[in-house]
């Protein structure tokens, strides 16, 4: 049920929830969202639901105390409260990350970092006075736990869901209330069907290609297949995560929230830094607002900027996994961004195509580092990508043709969707009967594949 592409979610949880949500008076919707999300989370994370509940209460309590803090030394005490609760949240995250790494991967609660990040952002926004109104318990609880986001993001801000900037009508402050409508459900379903198709019809199919390469063993793949694998894995990761984010955004839309955009055509970016403004954008902006800028951002001279960038990317690496390859991945990206920002900036501005080449060539290589946790194996894969350092063992020179013959439709569809115009056209023309028929087909073919395969949960779940 925890998997958006699973039949139980699509045909049981979601419709039942939506029907109740539709008919319940709007004042109870936050409470219902909280309750439904707890059931949703418990179905996938079992006992960890108590951890989530504990963190919800604790964070709400601290938020309340910060809000109502009386007295002269208000600012100082608020600051202490903020530091205390963030320390608790970070500690929980670190402890479970370490437990998962040292003992067993299953000790990492589902979606832990996503809801912890939301809690930190909640506390920081509250402290910085960015909330226009005191959040109620059900609002805060629904925000922390809401099922479209609890397992895998996107990391929405509290103000995006509640307390959007108020409008003044006749000197009275009016907050836009969240409403549901057929229109929103239809739009949400459009995004959901698109995301489902990306996940099931592209990412899961390409996932098999990567499994094949792992099965063969990296030392025995031909160089063309190594590159095909790098591209295939990059596309798999992209459509797995983008598809998930579209489904999450679509469900949010059905519930009356605004659409949270998490991927903004990253492969059309004009450089690595730009890529990461567009890839998992809510995580990038979270790091920017709550780590990079508090550290001083880019205001304190070149050395500080480089230090801050490297720190953010080191943290990003750690966040994705504790093994060395993720640290290398983060550091390499940090270095590439520093390189772009300080060394070749002029060149990139003069010849933008170089930036695009950076994205389409270097990014897949960084995903290879991301994919292979064993450093020795990683070295072997790179020696196959760049075969100047050694030859393979038992290489079948026909392997590229074989796998290209099987996977070209999925690769082609993936590459096509990397070009913004195709996706934008679908969204723009979503009321066109041809597009509706296409999405209907995508939806049901995806359900067909989900029915016959055991179901392959999202790759990002344990992060």
């Amino acid at each position, binding site marked *: 049920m925890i998997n958006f592409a699973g*039949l*139980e979610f699509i*045909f*049981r949880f979601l419709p039942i929830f939506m029907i109740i949500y539709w008919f319940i008076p709007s004042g109870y919707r936050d409470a219902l969202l909280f309750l439904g999300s707890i059931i949703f989370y418990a179905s996938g994370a079992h006992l960890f639901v108590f951890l989530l509940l504990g963190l919800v209460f604790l964070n709400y309590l601290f938020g309340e105390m910060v809000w109502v803090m009386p007295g002269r030394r208000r600012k100082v005490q608020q600051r202490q409260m903020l530091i205390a609760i963030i320390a608790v949240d970070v500690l929980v995250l670190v402890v479970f990350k370490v437990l998962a790494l040292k003992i067993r991967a299953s000790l990492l609660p589902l979606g832990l970092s996503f809801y912890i990040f939301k809690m930190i952002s909640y506390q920081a926004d509250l402290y910085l006075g960015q909330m226009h109104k005191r959040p109620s318990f059900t609002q805060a609880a629904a925000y922390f736990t809401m099922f479209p986001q609890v397992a895998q993001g996107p990391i929405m801000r509290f103000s995006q869901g509640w307390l959007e900037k108020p409008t003044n009508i006749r000197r009275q402050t009016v907050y836009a209330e969240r409403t549901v409508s*057929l*229109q929103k*459900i*239809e739009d949400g*379903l*459009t995004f959901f*069907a698109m995301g489902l198709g990306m996940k099931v019809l592209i990412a899961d199919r390409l996932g098999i290609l990567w*499994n094949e*390469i*792992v*099965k*063969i*063993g*990296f*030392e*025995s*793949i031909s160089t063309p297949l190594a590159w095909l694998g790098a591209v295939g894995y990059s596309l798999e990761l992209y459509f797995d995560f983008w598809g998930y984010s579209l489904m999450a955004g679509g469900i949010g839309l059905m519930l009356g929230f605004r659409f949270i955009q998490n991927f903004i055509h990253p492969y059309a970016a004009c450089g690595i830094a730009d890529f990461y403004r567009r890839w998992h954008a809510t995580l990038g902006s979270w790091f920017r607002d709550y780590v990079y800028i508090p550290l001083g951002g880019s205001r304190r001279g070149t050395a500080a900027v480089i230090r801050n960038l490297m720190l953010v990317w080191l943290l990003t690496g750690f966040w994705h996994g504790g093994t060395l390859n993720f640290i290398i991945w983060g550091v390499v990206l940090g270095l590439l961004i520093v390189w772009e920002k300080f060394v070749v900036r002029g060149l990139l501005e003069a010849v933008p195509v170089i930036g695009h080449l950076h994205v389409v060539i270097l990014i897949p290589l960084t995903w290879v580092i991301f994919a292979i946790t064993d450093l020795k194996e990683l070295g072997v894969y790179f020696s196959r990508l760049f075969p100047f350092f050694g030859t393979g*063992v*038992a*290489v*079948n020179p026909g392997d590229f043709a074989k796998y290209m013959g099987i996977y070209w439709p999925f690769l082609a569809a993936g590459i096509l969707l990397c070009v913004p115009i195709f996706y934008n056209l679908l969204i723009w023309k979503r009321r066109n*009967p041809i597009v*509706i028929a296409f*999405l*209907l087909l995508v*939806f*049901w073919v995806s*359900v*067909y594949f*989900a*029915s*016959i395969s055991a179901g392959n949960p999202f790759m990002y779940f344990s992060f």
Partner: protein
Amino acid sequence: MLTVLKRIFRRAPLLVLILLIWLVLTVLALIGRGRAYREYSTQHGRIPALSLVMRGIHDHIYPWSEAPGRAAADADGKEPKGAAEDGTGTADAAGTDKQDTADAQKTADSAQIQDGLLQTPSESPKSPAQPAEPVSLTIPESSCSKVVGAKDYGVADKSYLSPDDTVYNTDKEGLFAPDGTYYSLQEVDDSYFADALMIGDSRTVGLYEYGDMADVTSFLARESSTIYDLFKDDEKMEYTPRGKKSTERTLKDLLKKAKFSKIYISVGVNELGVPDTKDYYNEFREVIKKINKLQPDAIIYIQGIMHVSKKMSSSDPVYNNKAIVQRNKAISTLANGRSIFYIDMNADLCDENGDLKQDLTGDGIHLKASACELWHKFLRKNAIVIPAAAGAEPAGQSPAGQTPAGQTPAAEEPAAEAPAGQTPAGRQTE
């Protein structure tokens, strides 16, 4: 009412169409539930009904299909299954000896399992009424490989396993034993495989692609094929005759048209998700019977299921070595040391805990390309050579004391005729 629906449709066409199709599929699923989809009955209630229709489309079964192809295929196998379970059929032939066999198997551990007691072929069918001295024979050590045990990490899902004291009745003597001679596994060169056929799943596909055997022998393999699929009429597999281009063939069709002297079967990992071992064993026995019928002179090699890596085995409730060892123990009892042999390469590929060595596998289930040569080597080292001419020195003999004393291979010649008389008796179970 209609105008309301029209308005809804105009505002949310995708939603309406999805709901409509959902409704239709659910109705179809409910119609077909009792009949066409009864095969999928274990899933009722756990997943939405419409997935029955989807799975049906995949298996070419539709709600209006009266007798689904799969159920029909299964019906073939059901009778003997039932016969085996209630102890009639071949068990009669075994007489009192059957009890011994059962007892022996109950106490047998992984190392001894294929040493299960075996009755001489000439015994009961000739004189069913006469409770003659049951002669127990043990297949000599070197005839079949031993089942390689493995560490139990305690993750196995019990519903896929048979209870520990399950007895796999050894009806092989009535079916397959051509003579009283046992043969030993010995080393051969690649020319041995020229008239062999390798049947298998994705692992065998790997052997074909990376085991340096494509020019040496013939393959009939397909990814994710199972013992249940092998004789299905619509299960076409990739047939690659030695060094030639591949075509799509079914096993039945191929065995009818081409002759092979050695047939290797390597399946089993995909079936781990199908309960349970007893069922797997029964199906395997049926497959061997059918192969034996089509190619009576071929040596049949049952290849033990290769173990998985520790990482996989210690975490996966289905794909783990406990389940694999249980299945290997079961199918190893189908060997008779005369024309059907059990060979198990796990000893060459696994560590001391019986886990597939990590450096030999990428995904924990398949041999890496660079390790497929080890499988090829294993096959070369563990072959059976049956002398062509009658009376020629067999490669190995039954140890003295286990066959009536003083018998030479030549003296056993008449005994070789006994199974001919016995085979029909054995087949009565079908």
